[in-house]
């Protein structure tokens, strides 16, 4: 019985080894979990058009994507933000845009909040909805975990420090934010505009707030009027060439705009 097992193991390994010989040209892409589903879909379409290329997309966060691109572990890194100043040695290409919108539970009576009110809520200076014109109830602040690009964008926009925010719930990925706010009538959070719009359309109990009077819609992100937006970026170590170049060009082209919209992001126009 034991011997049989051992044989199977060996057989399995040999099988594995033998099949890798047919490796086509492979592009490894790692990074932001926000960007990964989109790039994976783009990759599939690219593979269809270029049968001898294989594109492996792995997730792990923006910082990871940038690190892997820099160290050469990945051909391309994915980041859900623009490159920081200390990352300017790398080459970044935006393939889509994403807006960050404030969401409330759909049952919340509050229609709009001023920037100051949002800041006060997130700093814990306002703790009850009655202070901003809603039905009395303790505010549940839903914040993003430290290090996330969404958080950085939010903090930058409102000129806040991570340690000053008084949150009741801290979440990781985008959908967790939507699910948390949808389940709590007194919650406030911020998520990707496209997905929130989609979820609200699907009947999920969330609604997007206007910012500075500008409604949080995909349209307003596209025309650049919505203030809280970020680029989804593909990062390479050097000026890309060969298949990598071809892929990045493809990812920017109009041929993938339907995929970008399918993921509730906003295509970048050349």
């Amino acid at each position, binding site marked *: 019985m034991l011997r049989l097992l051992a044989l199977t193991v060996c057989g399995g390994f040999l099988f594995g080894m033998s099949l890798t010989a047919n490796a086509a040209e492979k592009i490894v892409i790692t990074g932001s*979990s926000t960007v990964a589903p989109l790039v994976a879909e783009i990759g599939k379409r690219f593979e269809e058009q270029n049968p001898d290329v294989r594109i492996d997309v792995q*997730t*792990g*966060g*923006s*910082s*990871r994507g940038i*690190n892997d691109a820099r160290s050469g572990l990945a051909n391309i890194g994915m980041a859900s933000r623009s490159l920081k100043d200390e990352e300017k040695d790398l080459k970044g290409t935006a393939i889509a845009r994403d807006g960050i919108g404030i969401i409330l539970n759909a049952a919340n009576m509050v229609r709009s909040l001023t920037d100051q009110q949002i800041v006060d809520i997130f700093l814990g200076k306002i703790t009850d909805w009655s202070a901003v014109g809603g039905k009395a109830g*303790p505010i*549940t602040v839903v914040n993003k*975990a*430290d*290090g*996330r*690009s969404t958080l950085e964008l939010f903090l930058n926009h409102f000129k806040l*420090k*991570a*340690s000053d925010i008084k*949150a*009741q*719930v*801290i*979440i*990781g990925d985008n959908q*967790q934010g939507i*699910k*948390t706010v949808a*389940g*709590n009538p*007194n*919650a406030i959070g911020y998520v990707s505009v496209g997905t929130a719009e989609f979820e609200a359309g699907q009947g999920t109990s969330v609604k997007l707030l206007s910012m500075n009077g500008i409604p949080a819609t995909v349209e307003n992100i596209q025309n650049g009027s919505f203030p809280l937006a970020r680029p989804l970026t593909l990062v390479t170590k050097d000026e890309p060439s060969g298949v990598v170049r071809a892929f990045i060009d493809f990812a920017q082209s109009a041929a993938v705009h339907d995929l970008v919209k399918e993921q509730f992001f906003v295509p970048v126009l050349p």
Partner: protein
Amino acid sequence: MSPCSRDARLFWILSASALIASGLLLLILVFLAKESWPVIQNAGLSKFMRSDGWYPTEGAYGLLPMLAASMAMSALAIIIAAPLGVASALFCRFYAPPLISRMYRWAIILLAGIPSVVLGLWGLTVIVPLILAVSPPGTSLLAGSIILALMILPTVALTTEAALAAVPMTYWQGAAALGLSKEATILRVALPATAASIYAGILLAVARALGETMAVLMVSGNVVQLPSSLFDPVRTLTANIALEMAYATGDHRASLFVSGLVLTALVLALAAGARRSGGQIVHA
């Protein structure tokens, strides 16, 4: 092949396997230590054993609240799961009609195999709103404990059941001969005879509870604070790693590995402590 050399060979194969198995732990520890070394060197361990905030990007590394949260959540979970698990095993073994017993066992085994993500999702959409109705924000220490309890219950139930199955027939006969009632036989004979195994099962369950990540992340709120009530949102060490690892670099990343190191040390202390007292149970 002569039996002697065959035995010798067997022994070497076995030893090599055991060496690999326990070597794995050593490797993991070395890996953890190596990854967390830079920040320990820079900031010192004492900076982690504080509760003045976790803002690694701003140089504040207070792990204490998360350590407390991890311990509190696992303790609560085992307080819920241990009685339910042992009672489940008793139910399966002594009280349930054969068909129900079989089905119930299946349910327990399936429960053990439900991905923590699914449990977390269910917790977030079902349990959290229930707790929210009592006291906001719903995502809380209590929610995490309930989900964890569900997750580790099968471990307790299955190990207890296996241990009960192994109680020698003579014990039952002996108890029956003494005219002991069923209840007395179970409580005074069967459970004490299996105490060591049940204990081991509970230990395994606590270790799993301490190490659980995804479900906890989804339902417990993840706010870094010392919990003062069951309804407070808390962040465990594992959730901390999962939330931030993908986005961390440099000292921040290293400090997350310190979280892992602290957690492993906690499990080690637990296992060593249990081993000491467990040994006494075996001899008693």
